[in-house]
């Protein structure tokens, strides 16, 4: 029995290290399950809906759950990102329309410092609410790895559309329109 004690310890340590490595690699990986579900029409519930995110430039926090009943266009952005600058006017224009239909855009800053984000908001004349995801855990639960990314969430809190690159043309308007008519 004692003959096997040392090999058993070595194997256990090796397995432990291997398990840690596997966990680390898996944790770094990209989560594309939301995209696949949305593409199939199995709209998944928005993850981390109860995560409290600090409001940019103000006290207090906001959760996605607090917006249940509204159509929410979740836009992940950063001030240093040129495509984010390019799509900001599209979002701001859409916000004016959405407000009338019990819907809103919710900006989420990612990989950005708050002073730069606030300057961005001022320069782009953004009026919709903007929150900060400091740890990045909230946006990562959406499979986000970069900016800009946009998610359309219906009144039941389900993700109905995903765009993992810059908004252009009337994609946002076309995509959101059918969900605005749905009852809350």
């Amino acid at each position, binding site marked *: 029995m004692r003959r096997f004690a040392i090999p058993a*310890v070595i194997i256990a340590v090796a397995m432990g290290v291997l398990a840690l490595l596997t966990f680390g690699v898996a944790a770094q990986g990209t989560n594309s399950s939301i995209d696949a579900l949305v593409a199939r029409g199995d709209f998944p519930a928005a993850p981390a809906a109860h995560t409290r995110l600090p409001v940019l430039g103000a006290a207090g926090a906001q959760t996605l759950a607090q917006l249940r009943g509204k159509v929410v266009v979740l836009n992940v952005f*950063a001030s*240093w*990102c040129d495509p984010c600058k390019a799509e900001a006017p599209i979002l701001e224009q859409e916000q004016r329309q959405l407000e009338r239909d019990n819907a809103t855009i919710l900006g989420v800053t990612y*990989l*950005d410092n*708050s*002073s*730069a984000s606030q300057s961005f908001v001022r320069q782009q004349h953004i009026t919709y609410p903007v929150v900060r995801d400091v740890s990045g855990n909230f946006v990562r639960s959406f499979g986000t790895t*970069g900016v800009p990314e946009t998610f359309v969430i219906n009144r039941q809190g389900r993700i109905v559309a995903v765009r993992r690159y810059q908004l252009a043309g009337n994609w946002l308007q076309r995509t959101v329109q059918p969900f605005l008519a749905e009852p809350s």
Partner: protein
Amino acid sequence: MIRTALALSLALLLACSAAPLALAATAHPRASLTDIENDVMCTSCREPLAVAQSPQADSERAYIRGLIAQGLTKQQIEQNLVSQYGESVLGKPPASGFNLAVYILPPAILAVGVAILAVTLPRWRRRAQAAADTPSTSSPAFDPAEAARLEQDLSQFRG
């Protein structure tokens, strides 16, 4: 009298010259961008800020320059960066939660390895020693006739 005056002057001179040194020793050194860049990460490109070339890295550098200009120490700047970008901005992960594995595992593996060697090496040495002490019984001794024949054969090869 002159000696006393000289001693007093010398003491005063020493005190004056030591004061700025003592102050410098207690004050925090001024942070530099180069120093901080080596210890923090570009959070979007996941590489050290010192080598990262991206819009986010440039934005992070500009932010750090602003903090340096405010007179913050390196430690304060790193704390500020964590509050803005999260813990992933730090080059070395904080020693808490799952990150503890980074600090605990390498020395633990080393300790286990040393312990295994400490147990097995004496055993191997004892076995080797015992094998050397035991007279070999595997090969039977030559009888004199065979030994003579072998010697004869070998002598032919030796010329």
